């Protein structure tokens, strides 16, 4: 068992490393593609050469990021087949279909029109070029859509039926998978967060131009576009974040409890705006969950249920299987001990199905299959010996969530202030402190973005598929040492790519900032 957990931990670290590095590049692609599309649209409408120069400058930075980031996500698929082979088989065409659509449709669409974007300035009509730029942006969004649909299914598995003969989940309703509330919120929340990141990047780089007093007009025009995209992005990201909170409270209440460090819920539950968790607190002791906290009354009930008096369950309530009505009456739902028992019955049924299949006993197979279907919703709980095994890492989830929310709140204020300054008080934009604020906000938006990913993925632990498969069941029969070797190889590769991206971008930004930008210089 120790060796198994070692393989699980190293494989999780490897997957997290790959996904987080991949996610450094992707949101910038999503955000910059929209911004470049808007800039080229202005050029198309005005025929102003300055806008052409601006478009080409940001398009070049988009190209650098695309080149560094492209195909970094393919490693995740390698890992599925090697490290997570049980999972890969178990999910069947649920994962295969969206990823195949992503690979064939979106990736090729994106790649084709990127070529027109960069090679086609003097070879295709301005209208076709503009269409290609927008189709690249749409292709990037479609890529994200299919990946996020697959991810959302892992958080809320719907539209499928488990077939014990194939040992796979079979898709029974494509639209239930694609249009699940989890998938819709996840898609918009994630893609719109890319707009925010792109907006901050454009504003930050433009502030550097202002700081160096180079290409002032390019910088000011870019701040306007980046600022608006960022502001619209952050408002919509917050709105879809609210939708995500409602979906999480409904389908992954344990994750929500971990996000808030909430052990004992109540009606009219407050939300922790800022807090320090008590590291001694566990689900089965009576210590205070927080060493320090600043809370907003009714906040979590409003966020999660859109009702200030609604009951929000904590970790202990979920384990015990109790909820309260607004009148104070107790409602019993499945406790985690009951779920574990039901999960074990599902395991026994699957085992009996396998035996019956070997013996060619179709009556026993049908009986076992029926009992499996009846208990399958808690199949994953059958792996646990204790309810505490179903509790996610509370501290990491709590802090990641709060870093994301606080940084998101800061970004909203940042965009409002930047847009106010660029339109109404442009002289204040010339102050170094404002320019440095713009530059230093670039790492803040990446921290915010990565924190969101950590909240979503760590908060759903121990599940790789919610309620159906914990990570330890998903792992292949491989050695921890083989995963460690490739883990460190990835560290070297990805760090090299990141350093290359930063160096090339800084070189290009520095070089172009020293030139008076016009159409021919780009």
């Amino acid at each position, binding site marked *: 068992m120790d060796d198994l957990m070692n393989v699980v931990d190293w494989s999780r670290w490897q997957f997290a490393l790959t996904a987080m590095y991949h996610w450094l590049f992707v949101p910038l692609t999503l955000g910059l593609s929209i911004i470049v599309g808007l800039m080229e649209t202005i050029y198309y409408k005005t025929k102003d050469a300055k806008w052409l120069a601006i478009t080409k400058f940001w398009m070049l930075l988009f190209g650098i990021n695309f080149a560094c980031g492209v195909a970094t996500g393919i490693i995740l698929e390698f890992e599925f087949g*090697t490290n997570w082979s049980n999972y890969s088989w178990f999910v069947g065409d649920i994962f295969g279909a969206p990823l195949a659509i992503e690979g064939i449709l979106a990736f090729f669409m994106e790649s084709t029109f990127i070529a027109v974007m960069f090679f086609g300035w003097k070879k295709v009509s301005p209208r076709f070029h503009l269409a290609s730029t927008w189709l690249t942006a749409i292709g990037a969004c479609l890529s994200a859509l299919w990946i996020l649909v697959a991810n959302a299914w892992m958080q809320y598995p719907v539209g499928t039926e488990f077939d014990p003969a194939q040992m796979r989940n079979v898709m029974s309703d494509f639209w239930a998978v694609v249009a699940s509330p989890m998938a819709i919120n996840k898609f918009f929340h994630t893609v719109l967060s890319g707009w925010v990141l792109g907006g901050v990047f454009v504003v930050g780089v433009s502030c550097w131009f202002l700081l160096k007093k180079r290409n002032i007009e390019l910088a000011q025009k870019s701040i306007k576009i980046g600022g608006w995209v960022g502001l619209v992005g952050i408002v919509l990201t917050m709105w879809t974040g609210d939708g995500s909170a409602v979906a999480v409270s409904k389908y992954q209440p344990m994750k929500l409890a971990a996000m808030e460090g909430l052990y004992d819920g109540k009606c009219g539950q407050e939300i922790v705006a800022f807090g320090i968790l008590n590291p001694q607190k566990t689900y089965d002791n009576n210590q205070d969950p927080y060493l320090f906290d600043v809370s907003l009354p009714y906040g979590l009930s409003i966020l999660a249920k859109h009702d200030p008096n609604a009951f929000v369950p904590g970790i202990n309530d979920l384990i015990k299987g109790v909820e309260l009505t607004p009148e104070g009456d107790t409602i019993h739902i499945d406790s985690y001990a009951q779920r574990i028992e039901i999960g074990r019955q599902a395991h026994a049924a699957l085992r009996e199905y396998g035996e019956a299949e070997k013996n060619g006993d179709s009556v026993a197979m049908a009986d076992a299959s029926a009992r499996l279907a009846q208990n399958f919703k808690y199949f994953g709980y059958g792996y646990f010996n204790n309810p505490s095994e179903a509790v996610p890492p509370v501290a990491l989830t709590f802090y990641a969530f709060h870093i994301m929310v606080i940084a998101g709140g800061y970004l909203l204020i940042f965009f409002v202030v930047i847009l106010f300054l660029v339109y109404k008080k442009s002289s204040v934009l010339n102050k170094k402190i404002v320019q440095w604020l713009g530059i230093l906000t670039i790492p803040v938006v990446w921290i915010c973005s990565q924190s969101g990913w950590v909240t979503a993925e760590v908060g759903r632990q121990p599940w790789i598929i919610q309620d159906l498969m914990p990570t330890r069941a998903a792992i292949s029969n491989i050695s921890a040492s083989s995963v460690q070797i490739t883990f460190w190889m990835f560290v070297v*590769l990805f760090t090299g790519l990141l350093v290359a991206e930063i160096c090339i971008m800084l070189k*290009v930004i520095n070089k172009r900032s020293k030139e008076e930008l016009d159409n021919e210089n780009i």
Partner: protein
Amino acid sequence: MPMKNNQESIIRRILRFYVEGFKSMTVGRYLWAMILIKLVILFFVFKLCFFPDLLSRDYDTDEERAQAVRSSLLDNR
């Protein structure tokens, strides 16, 4: 065969589009070199040497793979 000539012309134009595009690149040359090196590392080093699809490698049929996954999911977890 005007249809065939027309098709060839389109293919030739697309090829010329890419060839001239690549030739006129400046920063893009380094980026394409980076992409190609990265793809070689990913597919010819990582995929071939370190990331086999275990179930495809170890079992010949889907039935055997299903049986292997069932055993793995129910034993020693």
